[in-house]
């Protein structure tokens, strides 16, 4: 407890002037970002390292975080990308056979500012009511008014370029060749492809369709990623060119890019979906799966009619678009994370669907959805 007393104070200041004062842990400094919440009760290390959180200050609604420490397996990318981490209480000790250190030391070594001891439920409810807010996490003495003033300016929108791979790299496999467009891809996506024997070539977000097709892939994977899909018009154009030429499977941001490429619209959600308990109904089977989600934008369902996209999955809670299939081309996508990590494995089968789709196209068996009806 003596340790707690000696820790520095940290503040979370929101754009609307609300201030939370708590205990700082991890790095010191000042960090701006969009304040969001995640309702998962486990999986904090996967959240920290999910590049889709780039530019965001993440609040965990579960109050006790860090109990099982950090390890070398539960990472979804090279390093944490969050712009700050907000918890009710972090565990000073790590208890797990895999653990290699405490959450606190992990944040510190990666320069992530953490704040603890605040009423995270109150913060969550503010976000729920007002929608996602800009905020700043600081351990400095900067006056609140100055911070609030700074928060009135929009946040940078270049997250994808910050998280995508700078170079092409290959994760070799014996099977189908898949080019994965990395918009901030979680390792879990590659892991799921490798588990099915795929030969995965990961390319930067800016890679053109021509370059991608030059790899002669059996399929293209559109990864998850941070931010507003409209900030990546280049990627939309690439996807537009890929459709019809190669089987495509999109996840999360990948879905949004595909939707934009097909003429649908995307809109910002009030506070998004971030957690591991979102029910998604497969309209084709009527079955509901519990899914892992992390997105702040969605496809406007009203923009779908007239496009080649058909709704296949909807969110059971709020009816939002969760899955689409192209009616003329071998392409489908989901808004949630079949690769899990964190979250349930219920939708792991989608990767198998992707394999079957690639095989069907390869073997000339594939029938467009429009004709199959």
């Amino acid at each position, binding site marked *: *407890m003596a340790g707690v007393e000696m820790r520095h104070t940290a503040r979370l200041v929101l754009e609307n002037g609300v201030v939370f004062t708590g205990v700082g842990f991890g790095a010191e400094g000042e960090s701006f970002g969009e304040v969001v919440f995640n309702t998962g009760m486990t*999986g904090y290390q996967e959240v920290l390292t999910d590049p889709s959180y780039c530019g965001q200050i993440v609040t965990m609604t*579960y109050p006790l975080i860090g109990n099982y420490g950090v390890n070398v397996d539960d990472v979804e990318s090279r390093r944490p990308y969050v712009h700050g981490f907000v918890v009710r209480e972090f565990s000073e000790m790590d208890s797990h056979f895999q653990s290699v250190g405490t959450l606190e030391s992990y944040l510190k070594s990666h320069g992530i500012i953490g704040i603890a001891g605040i009423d995270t439920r109150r913060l969550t409810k503010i976000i729920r009511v007002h929608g996602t807010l800009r905020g700043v996490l600081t351990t400095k003495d900067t006056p609140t008014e100055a911070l609030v003033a700074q928060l009135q300016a929009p946040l940078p929108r270049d997250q994808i370029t910050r998280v995508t791979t700078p170079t092409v790299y290959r994760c070799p496999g014996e099977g189908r060749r898949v080019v994965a467009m990395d918009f901030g891809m979680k390792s879990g996506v590659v892991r799921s492809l490798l588990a099915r024997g795929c030969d995965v070539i990961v390319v930067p977000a800016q890679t053109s369709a021509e370059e991608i097709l030059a790899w002669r892939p059996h399929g293209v994977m559109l990864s998850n990623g941070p931010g507003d899909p409209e900030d990546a018009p280049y990627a939309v154009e690439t996807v537009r060119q890929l459709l019809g030429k190669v089987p495509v499977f999109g996840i999360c941001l990948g879905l949004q890019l595909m939707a934009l490429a097909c003429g649908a619209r995307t809109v910002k959600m009030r506070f998004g979906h971030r957690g591991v308990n979102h029910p998604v109904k497969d309209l084709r089977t009527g079955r509901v799966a519990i899914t892992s989600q992390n997105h702040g934008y969605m496809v406007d369902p009203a923009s779908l009619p007239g496009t080649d996209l058909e709704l296949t999955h909807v969110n059971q809670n709020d009816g939002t678009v969760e899955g689409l299939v192209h009616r003329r081309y071998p392409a489908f996508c989901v808004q949630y994370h079949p690769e899990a990590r964190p979250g349930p494995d219920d939708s792991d089968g989608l990767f198998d669907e992707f394999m079957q789709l690639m095989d069907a196209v390869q073997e000339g068996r594939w029938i467009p959805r429009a004709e199959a009806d």
Partner: protein
Amino acid sequence: MPKRTDLRKIMVIGSGPITIGQAAEFDYAGTQACQALREEGYEVVLVNSNPATIMTDPEMADKVYIEPLTPEFVAQIIRKERPDGLLPTLGGQTGLNMAVQLAEMGVLEAEGVELLGTQLDSIREAEDRERFRALMNRLGEPVPESAIVTSMDEARQFAREIGFPIIIRPAYTLGGTGGGIAGNWEEYEEMVELGLTLSPIHQVLVERSIAGYKELEYEVIRDGADNCIIVCNMENVDPVGIHTGDSIVVAPSQTLSDQDHQMLRSASLRIIRALRIEGGCNIQFALDPRSRKYYVIEVNPRVSRSSALASKATGYPIARVATKIAVGYRLDEIVNPVTQQTYACFEPALDYVVTKIPRWPFDKFQSANRKLGTQMKATGEVMAIGRTFEESLMKAIRSLEIGRDSLQMEGADRLSDAELERRLAEPDDERLWLLAEAVRRGVTRERLHELTKMDRWFLAKIERLVEAERTLEGLAGKGTDGLRAEAETLRRVKRMGYPDSVIARLTGVPVDAVRQLCRELGIRPVYKMVDTCAGEFEAATPYYYSTYEEEDEVAPSAKKKLLVLGSGPIRIGQGIEFDYGSVHAVWAIRRVGYDAVIVNNNPETVSTDFNTSDRLYFEPLYIDDVLNVIEREQPDGVIVQFGGQTAIHLAEPLAKAGVRIVGTSLDDIDRAEDREKFDALLAELGIPRPAGVTVTSAEEALASASRLGYPVLVRPSYVLGGRAMQIIYNDEELQVYMRDAVRASHSHPVLIDRYVQGTEVEVDAVSDGQTVIIPGIMEHIERAGVHSGDSIAVYPPQSLTEAVKMTLVDYTVRIARGLSVKGLVNIQFVVQGDQVYVLEVNPRSSRTVPFLSKVTGVPMVDLAMHAVLGGSLAEFGYDTGLVPEQPLVSVKVPVFSFAKLRRVDITLGPEMKSTGEVMSSERTLAKALYKGLLAAGMAIPAHGTVLATISDKDKEEAWPILKGFADLGYRIAATEGTARFLRKKGLTVRVVNKLAQGTPNLADDIRDGKIQLVINTLTKGLKPERDGFRIRRTAVEHGVPCLTSLDTAASLLEVLSTIRFATVPLQPPATRADHGRNAADASSQVEVGR
């Protein structure tokens, strides 16, 4: 798949009496099921033998049958009601077994009754050990390796494959005799050899021991369309080795990584899918703390105690959803009643920590073996919610009502280091406190982990709590100002869940000053909502818990409101009957248009269903916490008369804090509870009670006893369920008692009364201070001296004269008026001849209120609430006096859990021992008793041998009873002394050896099934006489009925005589001359001549 329309009438089976392992959670489940079915428009037929439940209220179902849960009775009801469907999975193991039996008997098929929800084959697959094992193997889900061995060679073979430790369980030895865990070859060979010898079929089950693994539970739901979700996962703080019902449990899991959790979650879904469960299911896992290796321990294909806990922990109503699934709904068609805008097809997210601690009966059963293991011993449990583990643990501790408000335990510091370590390694109910003591002594975390195998994370939390104690102790002597200067420390310990009382004790600052200071510093609790979704969606659930945070979420209400104090965990002496009262009080308050607010901490109950009240505060029934709720709610009054002694004990401190208690006033409560004031009241009213005195020393006690004359009844001044109450026969026993009892209750004096041997009678009355309604008088079968809760109660009384009844009514009316009772009052009398004495007055709802309400049809709690709210009972057309008696005879029969509690003496006495009760109504007493005993689970022998071991003082009284059994064709066996006496009286008796006389002795006879009924009376007051004790325990453990009261034996005889046709031979002509001699004599002569 929407609701099925081909069903019209559905039968729900309850779980019967409360026993260890099957408590109030099934009242909660059953009540939810009935409500869920009726709101869909189905006609509901309910069967349950337990009258103390809400589910057996007439308004809960279209037809309520309070009948024995035996296949014969349930089949009879099925034939009469012809339901279309039967819901078997909400009545615990009892309900499930009943459904299976009915199906196996062909009743369901013959009557065209469909099992709803989980199907028979799935139930069997989950319950049958071998089939379950085969299924798990098919699924590739690991179960602990095991083998049945019949030779040492086979046993060795198994050990070579598996390695140690190995659990050894000899087949068919009750109570696990001869079993154990072997850690090496030597121990293993020894145990297997012993096991093979002890097992009557020379068979031993050997199994890989996973003791020390983490124990996890998953609550899973699946619908008919194969949608599955996990409602909650829970982690046992105590690793594998202690029954989950006896473990401290947290929700959600604390030490599992996401991958660990997802691995077990996915396994759970595979299992529930493979079993084709349609409804709720509980899956228990053991997880190796050093790897990701896991085992499936158990699957319960039904709602369970854990699912009740999970429902309260998450807000997700499992029983309700399971019921909807059973009538055809899919999870995505069922609206989440908490948010009302999302669906039941999701997984709750918690933003708080839940801790459950079991409540054990060892305060009542001091001789019991307190060691915890695979046999559950707890009678109930408490749950607490906090934003940190520390806060929820500390709240749970003070919810237990075991006289502890923190991790400090009296006497822990006196244990030797060795003893402390032993008790940490061989856990009992006090391990949590002993852990804290070990931390205080500087035992390292690693050593504690070695001893307990508890995860280091939990141990670190205990260290933090002890550290906080030390910080507070460091402030001792600095006074209020010193504490004020440490505002941050104060805030931190409050956030860790420390109540004012502990802060006061450790710092030496008076408790009122601590409270005042916290208020001054703005350290006050806020109330957060349990909403299933961690704040993601708007919710309207009026379900709150306190925590030390910024934002309070209780919606303001302009309505008048009343606060009802619940009764806390189920324990012996304070059972589900008190939840019945609390729930009815809440309903009555809501009916008159007030807001009803309830405070309670028992996750099993209907009262803590968030649908029951307008606002539920899941909080300790501890003065600090209750005052905080009151401060937040500002109720117009607080009601203490339905929460048993728990609530009554809070009345005084609440009143002192300026809280308005409505109903009978605190002064009047005190006049009934305080011995001297009570004596004065009775004297004033001219009502006699057995002569008695209050003493404070042993010398005083001895002098008083000789004046009163033995036997005497002794007890401490405040009594709960007859705790520490005894009948004492001589000076020696009194000396022993005074030493123990006075130590047990230091500041409280001891009461000594003359023991009046007579018929005990109990009355519950409703009063507004003027009109006193007496719904009925209950007569006890067992004489005074047996605790009223352990006696068979009969309504209406069968042996009381009109004059006695009039006296009882007269006394009741005078006492109720004398105490200005507003609400309920319970009075116990003893009747000796025409003389009526008052034994005890409880100015509150009692154990018999649900029973009496149900048999008389008088809505007692409703009327009581009317009076509490200041209304007049005369308005309802009631006059003062006894309500006309019902034509049927009803009995309330106690049910015990002795088989679960080793080393507990089953003898009935003034200390209450029963855990539950059943009810039965019939046209005659004998029929009612027969049905009641059946319902209570007694295997009533139709023929066989009665073993009698009767103490000298009871022999005269016993022989006509035994003769009666002999006349009905039972053989009589007895130990030498009893046999000699009985032979003298002309009975044919087989002599059996006492235990000391070598084998075969009477214990062997019981074990070998040669005895069908044991009648054993106690030689002396308290001193445990070895033989008697062992006879009684042997009987219990072998399921042989054992009667320790001659009154019960006489009643059983009466029952057996009545249900039989007489087989009397014609009188031979030669004896015609003797015409006129009665038949009984004739038959006894035949006996003698044999």
